């Protein structure tokens, strides 16, 4: 490595080049993720976005679902600051399909505990070209 390069904090000629490279890199990453999710990924496993308890499953295996259809309802603890005070209350939430598709399997039942990002609720196929 040349002495000139030593001590520099970037592999690029200037900071401006590094900024541009970061934008190109992110564009490629985002394009890859979107294409992968829209066209390549074979099935989608739906997992909860927060801890809670399953109240109802509104779909069953082999059922065709449309974007916006309710897939399941769960109960969770909603924590929110209201007028400076932390309020906790039990709330329920309907989780809707973000794309058209077909339910392949359902692996939970009413009353089951849901662990954020861990519990597999259902597996579905999705319409190619859409983002699940």
């Amino acid at each position, binding site marked *: *490595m040349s002495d000139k*390069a*030593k*001590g*520099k*904090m*970037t*592999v*690029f000629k200037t*900071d*401006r080049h*590094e*900024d*541009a*490279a*970061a*934008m190109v*890199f*992110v564009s490629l*990453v*985002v394009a890859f*993720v*979107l294409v*992968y*999710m829209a066209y390549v*990924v074979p099935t*989608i*496993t*739906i997992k909860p*976005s927060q801890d809670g308890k399953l109240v109802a499953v509104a779909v069953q295996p082999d059922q065709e679902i449309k974007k916006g259809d309710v897939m399941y309802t769960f109960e969770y603890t909603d924590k*929110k*600051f*209201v*007028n*400076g*005070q*932390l309020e906790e209350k039990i709330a329920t939430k309907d*989780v809707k399909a*973000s*794309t058209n598709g077909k339910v392949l399997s359902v692996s939970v039942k009413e009353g089951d505990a849901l662990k954020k*990002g861990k519990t597999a609720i259902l597996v579905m196929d999705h319409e190619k070209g859409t*983002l*699940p």
Partner: protein
Amino acid sequence: MEEKSRVANILAIVPGLAVMVGTLFLLRTYVEPWMKDAVVLGQKGWLVKVLSLNYILLSIIAGIIYRNVFFGGRIPDWAEAGFRTTRLFIKSGVIMLGSLYTLQKLAKVGSIAILLISTFVFGTVFFVIWYGKRIGMDRSMIGVMGASCGVCGVSAAVATAPGVNAKPSEVALAIATILGFGIMTMFISPFIGKALMMSDYQFGAWVGTGILNSGQVLATCLAFNPTFAPGTAVAYGEIWNVVRVISIPFVVFIVTTWACKSEAAESCDATGQKMDMAKVFKDRFPIFVLGFFGMTALSSLGWLGAEGSNTLHLLRDVMSWIFGIGLVGQGAYIDFRELKRAGGKPLRVGLVAGTLKYVVALIVIMLFVSKDASF
């Protein structure tokens, strides 16, 4: 010939980058899960719950250990090019964070962020100039310290150096002082935030104002709340961080103009011309923040998938890996020997200005920023 050297340059990146990626892989796959289950002082997950240690903080610690223990204080030649991709990853991560917002959400908190950041950035710059002069620090050192303490430890120091004729050693000292201060605040801020029962909004605003480095802002926010999602500490902290980064050209202009006025024209710029704000803005504007707003625009249009979708989940997972790789590298730029060398006046100015900003920002946030989430 040029082609060959370009290929060689790219290949030179591989070993160091492999160390960074491999380290993050080990931390995420083995170390963090082990810490979540480990029983310390009779409590399961004590290391994570009480010490707020997650893979993000561990990445920085691993980098520090590489540099100061395994590498003997200097990144070896075989790894140096790879570690110099650190800022590329941090900047890429910041751009991807734009996906956490919509334009409406950004507008909602943007004005508060601009007000607070402007006050603290320029207040700190003027304080450092005043205090540095008072204790007899060199003008060039005052310039880089002012920019480092005011806006951003690394980028602003590097951007200001030519305008104030700072020596590379002065830039290194300023960066070491500020990163060292940041490391301290990174570990104590989550405790303070939890002790004061700060909301994610308040914590993000405080850390985004009081901590001076993009990577450290992110790591501190994730130590407080490890979730990458709208409405979390990292989502708020990053708005403040981006506003701070945007202020770099303004700070460069002010510091350089001050240096020009305080000592003839020799430091005005390389050609002896007076500094021109438009030129500084054109030359120094950190264009990667345009990428951040680009991501926010895509998110607002719904082109990145719906909130809670598997697509956004994957995108955020990739983002967390990109940040993690960058933070291993960031840790490796913290050299305790340099920190020791930074002693004396620069360290005094850095600590006083950094602490003042950190504490006053905390008081202002607690008094004037509501706990209620803004979005």
